[in-house]
C-alpha cells in the first residue's frame, strides 16, 4: 500500500478477533470505519492509540509506535471515546488554556461554558466538549468513536462541519467510526468496513 509522507499507517494489526488490518490515512484525510457492533471497531481505535495490547506495526510519519514513550505517541494520536469522561468539577479544569471562542461558537456554546459545572452538562454537550478537548491538543491523528452519536441531526451536521474544517486546516489524519451511511458519504473519501476477523475497503477515493 502506498504511503503519503506524514500519514498514519497500520500494517497487519491484530487485536481481539480482528486480524491483518492494514491501511493508511494521509494527513488531512478522513477514513471511516464501520462494521457490525462487536466486530472490534473501538478496540482497533484503542490499539492505534496504544491503550490496548495488539500485534502488528503502527507508524505515524514513518515513526513506529513502539519507538517512542506511550504518552508521547498518545499526545500525537489522540482518541475520543464514545463515552466522554470528566474528572474535575468545572469544564475549564479539563483544558490547559482558555477555550477558543470561535470553536465554542461553532459547537453552539458561549464563552461562559468554561465555568460550568460538569455535572450539569447534557450527554450531547459533553460529547461536543470532549471533541474540543481533544482538538485543542492539536494532535497529528484524531481517532473518533461515533463522535456525533448523542447529537440531534442538526447539531450533528454542525459538529461534522466544524470537525472537517479543523481537520482540513490542521492536516490531521482521522479515523472515524460511523454507522450512518449518509454521514460516511459526507465525511470520508475512503471507508473501511470491518468484518469478522478482518477488513474490506468499501470505497476508494472518488
Amino acid at each position, binding site marked *: 500500500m502506498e504511503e503519503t509522507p506524514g500519514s498514519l499507517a497500520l500494517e497487519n494489526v491484530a487485536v481481539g478477533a480482528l486480524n491483518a488490518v492494514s491501511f493508511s490515512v494521509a494527513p488531512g484525510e478522513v477514513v471511516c470505519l464501520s462494521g457490525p457492533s462487536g466486530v472490534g471497531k473501538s478496540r482497533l481505535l484503542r490499539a492505534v*492509540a*496504544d*491503550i*490496548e*495490547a495488539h500485534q502488528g506495526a503502527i507508524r505515524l510519519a514513518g515513526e513506529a509506535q513502539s519507538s517512542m*514513550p*506511550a*504518552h*508521547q505517541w*498518545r*499526545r*500525537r494520536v*489522540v*482518541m*475520543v*471515546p464514545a*463515552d*466522554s*469522561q*470528566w*474528572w474535575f468539577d468545572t469544564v475549564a479544569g479539563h483544558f490547559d488554556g482558555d477555550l477558543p471562542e470561535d470553536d465554542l461558537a461553532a459547537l453552539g456554546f458561549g464563552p461562559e461554558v468554561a465555568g460550568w459545572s460538569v455535572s450539569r452538562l447534557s450527554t450531547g454537550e459533553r460529547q461536543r466538549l470532549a471533541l474540543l*478537548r*481533544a482538538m485543542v*491538543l492539536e*494532535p497529528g491523528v484524531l481517532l473518533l468513536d461515533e463522535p456525533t452519536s448523542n447529537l440531534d441531526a442538526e447539531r450533528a451536521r454542525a459538529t461534522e462541519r466544524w470537525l472537517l474544517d479543523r481537520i482540513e486546516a490542521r492536516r490531521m489524519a482521522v479515523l472515524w467510526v460511523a454507522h450512518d451511511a449518509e454521514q460516511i458519504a459526507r465525511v470520508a473519501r475512503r471507508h473501511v468496513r470491518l468484518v469478522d476477523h478482518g477488513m474490506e475497503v468499501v470505497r476508494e477515493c472518488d
Partner: protein
Amino acid sequence: MNVIDLAWWKLALTAGLVLLLAVTIHLGRLGMTRSLLVAAVRTVVQLSLIGLVLEALFAVGSPVWVLLMALVMLLVAGREVMARQGRRLRGPWAFGLGTGAMFVSSFTVTVFLLAVVIGPRPWYEPQYAIPLLGMILGNAMTGIALSLDRLTEAVWRQRAVIESRLMLGQTWRQAVGDIRRDAMRSGMMPSINAMAAAGIVSLPGMMTGQILAGSPPGVAVKYQIMVMFAITVGSGFGSVMAVAWGSRRLFDERERLRLDRLTS
C-alpha cells in the same frame, strides 16, 4: 518498681464479668453470645501462647531467635494485608508488595529506634525489640492495607476516567495522580488522627501499660511520644511505598491500564 502480679483466680473473676455480659446478651437476644465467647477464649489462648514464646525468647536472648520472631511477625502481617483487600494484584504481587513495603518501613524505623534512640545492650535486646517492632508493624499493616485497598478499588471504579486521561496524552502518573494521593492519605490518616487525639481523648495503651507497670509517668510519656512518631513514620512511608509500587504495577511498559492484573 514492683508490679502486682495477677493470680489466675483473679483473672477468672474478670472472666466471670464477661460471662455475665454473655448471659445478658443471650437473654436480650442480641445474637452475638457465641462470637463474644469465642473471641474471649481466643484472647486467652493467643495471649498465653505469645506470653510463653516471649518468656522463652527473653530467656535465650539470641539474635537468631529475635530475627526469626521478627520474620514470623512480618509474614503474618503480610498475609493480613493481602486478606484485607477486596481486589488484589494477581500472583506473588499481592503478598510481596505489602510485605515488602512493611519490611522496608517498619524494620528501618525499629532498628533506628533500637540502635540510635533507645540504645539497649545488645541493641537487639528482645524486651525492647519485639514490642517495638510489634507496635510499628501492626500500625504499618493497617496503613498499608487501607491505602492499597483504596488504590485498587479507586482504579477499578475509575478505569474509564484513567483511560480517557491516557488517551489525551497524559503519563500514567498524571492519570492516577489524584488516586495515588488519596490512597496514600488514607493510609496515613489513622496515625495522624491518633497523634492529634493522644492524651486528650484517649490515653494510649502503651503509656497506660508502662505506668501500670510502675514507670514514672514522665518516662512513660517520652516513650509514648517516641512510639507515636515511629508509628506515624512507619505507616506513612509504608503507605507511600506500597501505593507507589502498586500503582506502577497497574500499568505496563506502554503505560496501559492493566486491570487484568487485579483479581475481580
